[in-house]
């Protein structure tokens, strides 16, 4: 591959290989094994049931909706759904883990092998294999900075359902890692199975990074033998796309430096410090817990009916890749425009409302250029847009039917942005309608030619000078003249 990401070291080029574990909080009103609520931002320890607090004698009961969400996600990742899966206990002590174990799926996950396609910044695509997706409980939150000598524990998150999505080591650059997480977020948001908000911790990533010499990765892909790859380090809980790139860049460099100085990489868990941009060792392989996994005896194996899975499959929403292809094939959008619009569900929904029954290309131009441009400039998201999809659709319709020109439309957009209102009404009230009455245009042109005979004569030698006439006509008519009509009449009158 010519475009493989490389890092120049003292001994030559290096490549990086990554696999990601994404923890995605399942969209569900209740927790994985208890009926407690899951809303974000509640006062500490107010969403804790007896089960979540691990009171004596409490037992877990699976939340069927969460199972459905996991299956839906698996289907969205083009993955195999395991009709038989099982919950295991992962045992370790920590104050924010009330049971003393996390209920997870260690040996038999609910979702098996899958694959997704991701887009790099330049629009090129790459595939990432999914090894598995399993359900597990989130832990509570330990808060160390409220008091110098005490740690506070908030159990609101304790028992919240997470999907852990494990990728194959198919990710080869910081950009690809970020693109993979971004695509995963898009997919789960389309599916409605995870909110995807990294700031709220709804989506978190652990990044496994190793470095190798060119050619080694290809050997690994041929044989499946991990010994062709370097020793990996796991960077835990990176919570933004930017930090993912930074953490990987730093970590890869760190590993290369160690190897080139004759050292070896210790397999370990590391933490990324966003303030300093470095990764720090959290625990070595030797310090790793022995989690003593065993099947949770409080829960029966999870058995799904194929019919039920098929039903979920039949009701899957359109996914981003499908949407992008439809935008191209049915609406005639360019690859770039279709990709940009499909990459975010809210944006795609917005666009589809604008384009509904209207000129899709025109709608795409307005959404992609005018609206997104303006939103980016203001640092706003699509959901904050002061111009609704209905308003923008109305504007697009007015352009398309010739009521206003594109230039006037930009003025109307400004009014919509700052004052709001109905576009047709604004055009009407402010007299912005395009003049297509040829008589009125002819009168203005006749006057103009009469007032500027020399200019009119010279246009025949220098056709480019016609622009001056167009400008003058528009100026005289406050920009409301239909540009096509102006051009045509001018050509006729000037004998071009």
């Amino acid at each position, binding site marked *: 591959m010519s475009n493989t990401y490389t890092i120049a070291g003292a001994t030559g080029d290096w490549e990086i290989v990554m696999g990601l574990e994404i923890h995605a909080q399942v969209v569900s009103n209740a927790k994985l094994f208890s009926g407690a609520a899951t809303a974000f931002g509640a006062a500490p320890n107010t969403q804790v049931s*007896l089960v979540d*607090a*691990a*009171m*004596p*004698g*409490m*037992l*877990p*009961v*699976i939340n069927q909706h969460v199972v459905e969400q996991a299956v839906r996600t698996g289907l969205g990742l083009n993955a195999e759904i395991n009709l038989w899966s099982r919950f295991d*206990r992962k*045992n370790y*002590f920590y*104050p924010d883990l*009330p*049971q*003393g*174990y996390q209920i997870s799926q260690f040996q038999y996950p609910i979702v098996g092998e899958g694959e997704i396609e991701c887009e790099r910044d330049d629009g090129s695509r790459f595939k990432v294999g999914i090894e598995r997706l399993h359900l597990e409980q989130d832990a509570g939150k330990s808060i160390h900075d409220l008091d110098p000598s005490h740690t506070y*524990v908030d159990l609101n998150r304790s028992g919240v359902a997470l999907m852990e999505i494990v990728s194959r080591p198919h990710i080869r650059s910081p950009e690809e890692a970020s693109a993979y997480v971004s695509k995963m977020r898009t997919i789960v948001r389309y599916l409605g199975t995870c909110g995807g908000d990294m700031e709220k911790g709804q989506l978190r990533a652990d990044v496994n990074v190793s470095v190798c010499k060119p050619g080694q990765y290809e050997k690994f892909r041929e044989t499946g033998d991990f010994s062709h790859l370097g020793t990996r380090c796991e960077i835990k809980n990176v919570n933004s796309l930017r930090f993912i790139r930074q953490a990987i860049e730093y970590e890869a460099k760190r590993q290369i430096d160690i190897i080139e100085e004759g050292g070896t990489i210790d397999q370990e868990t590391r933490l990324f410090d966003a303030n300093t941009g470095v990764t720090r060792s959290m625990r070595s392989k030797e310090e790793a817990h*022995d989690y*003593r*996994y*065993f099947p949770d*005896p*409080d*829960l*029966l194996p999870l058995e799904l009916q194929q019919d039920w899975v098929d039903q979920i499959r039949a009701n899957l929403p359109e996914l981003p890749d499908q949407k992008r292809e439809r935008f191209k094939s049915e609406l005639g959008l360019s690859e770039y425009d279709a990709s940009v619009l499909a990459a975010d569900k809210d944006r795609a929904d917005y666009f589809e409302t604008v384009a509904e029954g209207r000129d899709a290309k025109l709608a795409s131009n307005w959404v992609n250029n005018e609206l997104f441009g303006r939103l980016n400039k203001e640092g706003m998201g699509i959901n904050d847009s002061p111009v609704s999809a209905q308003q923008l659709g109305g504007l697009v319709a007015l352009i398309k039917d010739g009521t206003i020109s594109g230039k006037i439309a930009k003025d109307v957009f400004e009014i919509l942005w700052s004052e709001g209102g109905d576009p047709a009404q604004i055009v009407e009230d402010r007299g912005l309608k395009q003049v297509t009455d040829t008589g009125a245009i002819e009168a203005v042109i006749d006057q103009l030619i009469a007032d500027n005979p020399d200019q009119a004569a010279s246009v025949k030698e220098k056709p480019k000078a016609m622009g001056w006439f167009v400008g003058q006509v528009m100026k005289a008519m406050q920009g409301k003249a239909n540009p096509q009509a102006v051009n045509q009449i001018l050509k006729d009158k000037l004998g071009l």
Partner: protein
Amino acid sequence: MSDLLKLSLDEVTTKLKAKEVSATELAKDALAAAQAAQPALNAFTAFDEDKTLAMAAASDEKLAKGEGGLIEGAPIAIKDLFAVEGVSTTASSNILKDFKPTYESTVTSTLWGNGGVFLCKTSMDEFAMGSSNETANTGPVNNPWTGANGEMLTPGGSSGGSAAAVAADLCFGATGTDTGGSIRQPAAFTGTVGVKATYGRTSRWGTIAFASSLDHPGPFAKTVKDSAIMLQAMSGHDPKDSTSLPNDVPNFVAACGQSVKGLKIGVPKEYRVDGMPEEIEKAWQQGIEWLKAAGCEIVDITLPHTKYALPAYYIVAPAEASSNLARYDGMRYGLREEGEDLTAVYENTRAAGFGHEVQRRIMIGTYVLSAGYYDAYYLRAQKVRTRILEDFDKAFQTVDAILTPSAPSAAFALGSKSDDPIAMYLNDVFTVTANLAGVPAMSVPAGTDKDGLPLGLQIITRALDEETMFKVGHAIEDAAGFNAKPEKWW
């Protein structure tokens, strides 16, 4: 003690319904008798007189209107493993010494729903780990039955307090839990009836877990019919317990007294163990003769994997326990012992909170689950478990019930085995198989040994077929005519 307390549950509920006695009167009698016996028997861990009397008064109101449930107005003792709202619930452990749940276990709330009146909590081996009730944080329970020379005997364990309370006529029924024999062995040691139903018949919700896949809540009673009434009043599907059976609960009471004629009774050769007292063997033979006389066909059967059951049990149970007991960490409730760092708090809390036997089992369980040992121990033990289940399945293709002794000895002297965990674990040799397989089993008093101590016989039936178990149990009870009672010394 009033003679009312000597009645069976069946008899007393009849009297209550006939208004010959009030629930309040009965509750007061039972409270007085139990409290009077406490210094001698040490069988109880908590009373709540206000609660008892309030529940009795509520029963009286219902009875006055001709209403009321299956056991309306009958005082029931509750093993300290069941959460009873607002009442100390400790699992006889220091780590939960001051714990009062804000919730009610499903089994006890079902009992109260059927009219039972809470009498008291009963002592047990700490976290149900033991076969002699000697590991309770409040000290051993004394069996109402005493040795030939008046020595104090164990009531068995782990549900020793409940067994003693029923044997001494201090209540009309009691709850226990049976993880490896913790109901059936104490029942055999105290001349009471103890039942472990099919796994999942009684809910585990709100019952402090020892080994989840083996824990069976069940009743102690004075008679087989009483035990059927008690089980009836405890059973049912519980959506809060994922392992609870969705099946309808059969009429256990109606099965008592039905003919056993034509039933095939299996006698497994593997239950004839070395060193078993001759009297146990004799009681077993006697049981066989009784059933033969009642029209049963006796069939010699083999349960070839029986000898692996005890070792498998002592891997699976500690493994699950090591994980189930992790929640007692001093962080949210229960005992907390401070320390210089987090690890020290954990260590100090659990060292002070758990007794030696509990610590031993946590260590065994942690060991058998650890990386590199899991396959050799836990996984292999689970395979043995499958074989044991297959043994039963095969046997039940030809027989309707299996008859064995309940325990390899009569009640032994307190202290005689407490220094030898292996000797103690051997007590469960006849009972663990039914826990590993999840099939119903009960112990019925069948006679006494040369010292006049009760001996029990065990009846094991197919999963979900408690009715046959009660039929056979009732037939043995009828034939045995067991009516011996410990001489009152407490």
